[in-house]
């Protein structure tokens, strides 16, 4: 008996070892969820600050995203696919290489997929916001306004999708449940245009014209009108206005309007005019300090009169860190080297094209007396740029053999392949790592681009003088001399075709590196600008203090017909067979 009691006491002690610790916990809680700080739908929309932060997430969809979003020549790599710029690296599985050689490998597909899903993810976020904002504690007026902002953003994401892919599936206001059917195909291009326009028409009237204080940077009425103009401009352009490259009839209406209708230009013109009529935007102009200084300063000012919609950023050295020449930079890992094509497109200070014998262009001194925008867009041989070493403006030398910035063959990766570096939108006082940031936001739509849209629509509707007026506005701000005829170097009575060329060339230089070129070439159905053409650079040889200049071929680009529209992600087409693939993919 004694033995038994000893053994039982021993057992009890052992059980206590375990039970004492379990006893401290409430048994039913042991496997239940411990409190975490994670957020969910309910907690977010029960709190006004969280709700506004969620809206911030929708705004983030304006982000530069590889093949969409506002371009700055950095993240939007399509810049280097066109005749605007060359990319630095010779090989690597880079998207640019894949496009410009027409090989469309894995990187290309993954970038395309990412952009597609990025935009649709933000469309979903917008729909979640619209679904829940009414239940949030925001004030009624804020609910109303933020819903309009959100609907605008959603329309913007669709507009980007349409630029990339043509007609796409429209989600409406539905937040899709994962058990929903994936069925249904793409909406036609016309349906998409109608949807986006109707959304913009619905939100534009009540959106504020401007914001001040903490709300600056939100969506305005001007943004809604400008986006409408942009969408209608695309819709009127050759590729979409009955110009689909699809051969299958069912694909035609998905990728464009099936038939051509010149009146679409009129709609675009009216939409552009509506933005001008607001009367609140103007081109940032300062020709007093220096000719064209407004064109330079605009990109460095957070608050300005020209930006209609911008991707808002904190003070940064975003562009400088990527684009500076080796002598000025730190990473300088993403050179976009501007091409000779772009350089040659800049007129002279008198506004005349360099191939005009009266322009005064001197091939032995090619960088003398050019359009002031040239100097703010391009670093060329001998151009002054701030150097942290010595803390002064010093020349950048791109002649062959100059170290470290001199031109190198395209097979190398070290420096420019064209003899030029990019500087547009950069703050020349702040080479990267020199300290300091600049108050840069990236323009998505600005008044300058709107005026060029207007010029194009005006010309296509036959109103050539109206078109020329816009070009003059642009050139005036650029710091170009008016000339005796106050035509700022423009010819006196150009034909419609000549005007079209003038407008296209003006877009090329005014909007260089802002992400327009690739999509412009597509909508103009002008792939031959690129296809099978070499980009060129300037090989400069130094002899004593003299330089000799030789235009050289840099790299041949191809533009296959299927590039007029991006491929719908492969998996997407597999999952939903009703989703017809774009032509040529």
């Amino acid at each position, binding site marked *: 008996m004694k033995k038994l009691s000893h*053994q*039982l006491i*021993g*057992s009890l002690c*052992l059980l206590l070892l*375990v039970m004492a*610790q*379990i006893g401290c916990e409430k048994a039913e809680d*042991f*496997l239940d969820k411990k409190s*975490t700080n*994670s*957020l*969910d*739908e309910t907690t977010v929309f029960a709190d006004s600050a969280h709700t506004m*932060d969620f809206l*911030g*997430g929708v705004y983030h969809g304006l982000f530069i995203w590889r093949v969409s979003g506002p371009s700055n020549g950095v993240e939007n790599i399509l810049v280097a696919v066109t005749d605007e710029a060359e990319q630095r690296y*010779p090989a*690597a599985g880079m998207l640019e290489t*894949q496009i410009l*050689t027409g*090989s*469309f*490998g*894995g990187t290309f597909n993954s970038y395309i*997929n990412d952009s597609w*899903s990025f935009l649709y*993810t933000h*469309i*979903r976020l917008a*729909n979640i916001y619209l679904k829940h904002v009414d239940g949030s504690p925001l004030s009624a007026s804020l609910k109303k306004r933020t819903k309009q902002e959100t609907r605008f953003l959603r329309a913007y994401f669709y507009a980007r999708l349409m630029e990339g892919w043509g007609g796409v599936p429209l989600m409406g206001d539905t937040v*899709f449940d*994962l058990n929903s059917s*994936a069925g249904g195909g793409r909406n036609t291009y016309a349906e998409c245009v109608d949807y986006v326009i109707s959304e913009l028409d619905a939100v534009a009237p009540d959106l504020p014209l401007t914001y001040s*204080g*903490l*709300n*600056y*940077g939100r969506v305005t009425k001007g943004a809604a009108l400008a986006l409408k103009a942009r969408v209608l401009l695309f819709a009127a352009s050759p590729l979409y206005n009955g110009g689909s490259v699809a051969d299958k009839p069912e694909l035609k209406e998905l990728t464009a309007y099936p038939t051509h209708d010149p009146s679409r230009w009129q709609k675009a013109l009216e939409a552009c005019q509506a933005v001008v009529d607001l009367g609140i935007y103007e081109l940032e102009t300062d020709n007093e300090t220096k000719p064209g200084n407004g064109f330079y300063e605009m990109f460095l000012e*957070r608050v300005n009169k020209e930006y209609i919609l911008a991707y*808002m950023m*904190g*003070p940064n050295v975003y562009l400088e860190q990527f684009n500076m020449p080796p002598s000025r930079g730190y990473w*300088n*890992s993403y050179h976009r080297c501007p091409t000779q094509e772009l350089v040659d497109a800049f007129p002279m200070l008198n506004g005349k094209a360099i191939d005009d014998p009266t322009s005064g262009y001197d091939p032995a001194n090619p960088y003398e007396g050019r359009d002031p925008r040239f100097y703010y867009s391009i670093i060329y041989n001998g151009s002054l740029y701030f150097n*942290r*070493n010595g803390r002064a403006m010093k020349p950048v030398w791109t002649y*062959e*053999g100059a*170290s*470290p910035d*001199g031109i*190198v063959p395209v097979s190398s*990766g070290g420096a420019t392949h064209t003899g030029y570096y990019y500087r547009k939108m950069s703050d020349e006082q702040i080479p990267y*790592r020199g300290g300091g940031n600049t108050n840069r936001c990236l323009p998505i739509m600005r008044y300058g681009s709107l005026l060029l849209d207007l010029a194009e629509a005006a010309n296509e509707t036959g109103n050539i003088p109206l078109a020329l007026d816009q070009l003059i506005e642009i050139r005036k701000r650029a710091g170009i001399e008016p000339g005796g005829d106050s035509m700022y170097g423009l010819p006196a009575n150009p034909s419609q075709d000549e005007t079209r060329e003038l407008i296209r060339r003006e877009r090329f230089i005014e909007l260089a590196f802002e992400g327009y070129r690739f999509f412009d070439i597509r909508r103009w159905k002008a792939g031959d600008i690129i296809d099978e053409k070499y980009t060129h650079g300037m090989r400069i040889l130094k002899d004593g203090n003299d330089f000799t200049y030789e235009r050289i071929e840099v790299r041949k680009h191809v533009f296959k017909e299927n590039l007029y529209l991006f491929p719908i992600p492969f998996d*997407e*087409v*597999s*999952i939903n067979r009703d989703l017809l693939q774009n032509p040529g993919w």
Partner: protein
Amino acid sequence: MARISLQGMVINLALFTGLFAMTPVAHSQPSNVPLSLRISDKSVLETFLIIEHQTSYTFAYFSSGLDLEQKISLQAPDSNLEDVLKRLGQEARLHFEVSDRKIVVKNKEEHAKEQLDAVKTSLKPGYASLFTPLLTTTLPRFRQEEITGQVRDLVNNEPLPGVSVTVKGTQIGTSTNVEGRYTLSGVGENDVLVFTFLGFKPIEVRAGDQRRIDVVMEEDMESLDEVVVIGYGTQIKTDVTSAVSQVSGDEIRKTPTVALQNGLSGKLPGLFSQQRSGRPGGDNAANVYIRGVSTYAGSQQPLVLVDNVEYNYDQLFLIDPNEVESISILKDAAATAIYGIKGANGVILVTTRRGEAGKPEINFRTQFGSQTPVHVLETLGAYESAMLHNEALALDEMDPIFTPEDLELFRTGEDPYGHPDVNWYDVVFKPSALVTNNNLDISGGSERVRYFITLGYMWQDGLLRDIPYKGPDQVASGKTQVNTNFFAKRYKFRSNLDIKATNSLSFKLDLSGTRQEASRPKYETGFGTLFRYEYANPYIMPVYNPDGSFGYANPNRMIPPNESNNIAAVYSLGGYTKSLNDFLNVHISGTQLLDALTPGLSVKAEMAYSNANTASRSMTRYQTDIPTYWYNPETEIYTPRDPANYTILPYELVYEGGTPNRRLNLQGALNYTRSFEPHNVGALILFNQTSYMDGAEPMANFRGYTFRFTYNYNHKYLLEVSGAYNGSDRFVTQKQYQLFPAVSAGWNLAKEPFFQEVFPFIEGFKLRGSYGWVGSDDIGGNQYLYEQVYDRADNYSFGEFHNNIESIVEGVQGNNDVTWQTERKADIGIDFSLFQGRFSGSVDYFDNFRYDILTKRSTIPSYFGVQASNLPPVNIGEVSNKGYEIEASYKNTLGRLGINVTGNFSFAKNKILFMDEPDPKYPWQRATGLPIGMIRQHIWLGYYESKEDIANSPVPAGTVKPGYLKYKDLNDDGVIDTDDRAYMGKPNLPNTNIGLTLGFTYSNFSFSVLLQSALNFDIYMGNGNAVPFKTNLQPIHQGRWTPETAETATFPALTTTFNGSYMNPDNRSTFWTTKGDYLRIRSMNLGYNVPSEIVSKIGLSRVMLFANGYNLFTWSKFLDRFQFDPEVSSGGGGYVYPPERILNFGLNVTFK
């Protein structure tokens, strides 16, 4: 002269060898032993025999010069033993010592001398006499030639003392001394010697004309009732009805690896491991699988328990092979069901060593080894590379970058600064590095307390050279450079105590701690960078300039990417990052017998607490901050890489605390084992609870109830029912608990009389089978898998002045229906043993079916707006996994030669039955129905022969030139695109694994070799491995296609834009995919036991010298073709720290 009498064949030398326990006998005094003798004129020997016959006492002889043939007469009726011995001693001048039931016989003179010696050496007289070597005299009437020899055991190759050696059919015999030696006289040519020893298989040897007969004895497993470690207990092997394999610590230690996982390769049927990297202290942990893989989502790796307590894999890596007593792997449902929701991938059980009662034994084991990479990528020199670069540029229709003068200078090497030729690997890495592992074990104990204490120190050096900074403006040298080499140090202690508190209450107190320091250069990716063309081609820059500064690239030729620098400079001055890892483990358990309540019942409580802490300390500087210069030999001008960088900045010192993790495990169990002959029953009921805390993550809780009931009838018919009722907090309340049951049965056929009659040579034959369900909740994702999460995401700026907001976006979607994965496992097996256990083995067939696999659905279009990574898992996947294992071993002795061959063959083939795959456009795009880990790839046909061939063949988009890879147009649409990529070839993990161990022992030597092979898997090359001008040029590129070599080309035509072309390995194709099959000499081990006569002279009990090797040879097609280790993961994007080959020398010293 000495002989052993009839009954006294085995003298209990076990008294001091401790090899087996002696049956305790009540001591009776010799004076109480009745004896009646009437001897007249008989030999002493005959007298002894008579005494042995009458009593239970036996005589033993430990002295030389005994004259046992002398005739004596002795009348002692109704006397006692003591009296008789006293009188006999006087008569024959003999001295007797009685101990237990043994009478040791000595002559009187020797005894006197011994007594004196004993006093001198302070040894107890009894022990001294027993240690005296056995010497023999011969019996005159059998006197022939003397036979001598030594007896060793097979496994440890150690001398066996106390083995009885007799001449068959006679009374002649002796036993071996402590060195295992014996001498025997009076053996005729036709006589047969019989060696017997308890627990070992008897051996018979015909004497013939041999004068020396050495034998190796083998343990008789059957008779020892070999014990197998199973979940929460042990079982006698013959009673096991589940699929379990076990390997001993001794066996593991024969493979000299730092990481325990790597030492298992090839040793256990059904287990497969792959070593991914050889980096000291970090990545050399292997991936381990049991019976292949049967899920494509979540963890595929088995649960690991060390002494019943769960460990993470990085914690398992901290276990020193020296601590290990044995490792078991549990494979089928019967074995794993008791781990319920955690057992589906199989279980690895590690048991650590414990002390045995006896004198303190001190064991010191030290080993030093040299590590060399298994393979170093061979690259081409500057001249060949430059030639090929020019050739590629010409094909690309671009100007050459090298002039003929350049090429000539590369060829002659006359311009080492302007035209360098650097093998960066050789500059940065040395051929070999040291590894050493030292352990001191102290074990022993009394009946009440037993202990095993071990201290260990492991140091594994890295391959990085010491690259001096020789620059002109040298900062105080000590401050400029630190040790940037890779290395790992592991300090370790373990103390395992067994305490018997009362006769029925015992405790185990285990305490172990490990500290590991693993250091690596800040830019450890160097192994990859070294072979990158852009960063480190052979002519890119000289290592040093003439003035001692580090060189940099000529910008007119080629500039490396700007985030990089001279690699030698980076390794020299970039500093290090050291990770510090502390792991402490306390494990207490107590067992109370409750036999007073009912015999066989006991209760057990167990608590284990572990605390792992990581931190890192780094002294670093950015590689781009390190000044390097391009030296132009023509102008002798030095141009800095970065005009702003002329000085070596100080190091940045950073300490970062890591994420501590803590685990508390509590177990309580009732155990019942009892035999009601012939019925044997056992029961286990166990409560188990674990809380695991990892940094700021919510506590992960697990609770479970486990049971096992066993019954057997006379060890012949076996039945076992087991299972677990487990809960996991990863699921919603209604879905937390589940029962995972299993049943198994066995039939020991060999115990049936009819079987024994038919197959008398088969002593073991068991049929067994099991069926059950096991689960897995280790499926990745958030701790609360069902939970919807909104995430803080990117910043956005609003306001006239920057006003940052941290946005919120929808994160992972919730799904209240998620629950565990379940695996249904079936297994049938046979265990057999033939010819006295010389040949034994087992065969298993299994059929596993995993269902409810948590799958992220892939049929949800991305236009729904949920990113793939945010999709919630759904229990929909199904995988079948079937296969078999064969294990066989053969052991035998041929005189002094012992042979031991063990082989295992495992086959496991899985198949995805359902995984929510989008309906593919073409049938060859379907993964469902194929094994896990297949890839879609182009089918490589050859090379485009000419422009006409390109014009007439299907081509991919983009540039295609003659000599480019030609792929098959599966859908015949005239274009090569992703539609033409089909699931082809084999999966990325082998389905067949083979291990073969050959072991030999001869005299004091032992030798073993382990061959290991993995078959039926494919490896595809990643983008960073063999792409010309992305990686450095390699011999494979010399086999490029040119019009002249079109017939023999082994590589496509070179182009500088290769990486951007469709031929890039990212566009998978069978050109880049190669059979991964390999055969390795995984380890080789040679041991030598220093003869004990030498060892004992220096006061030690055992000294063993050994040499062993790891990864000694590899045969692999993949290695031959792409110079890449076949165990390194498929599709890796670069070159990792290569797995190592180790040549190791060691010494093991034991003393008491």
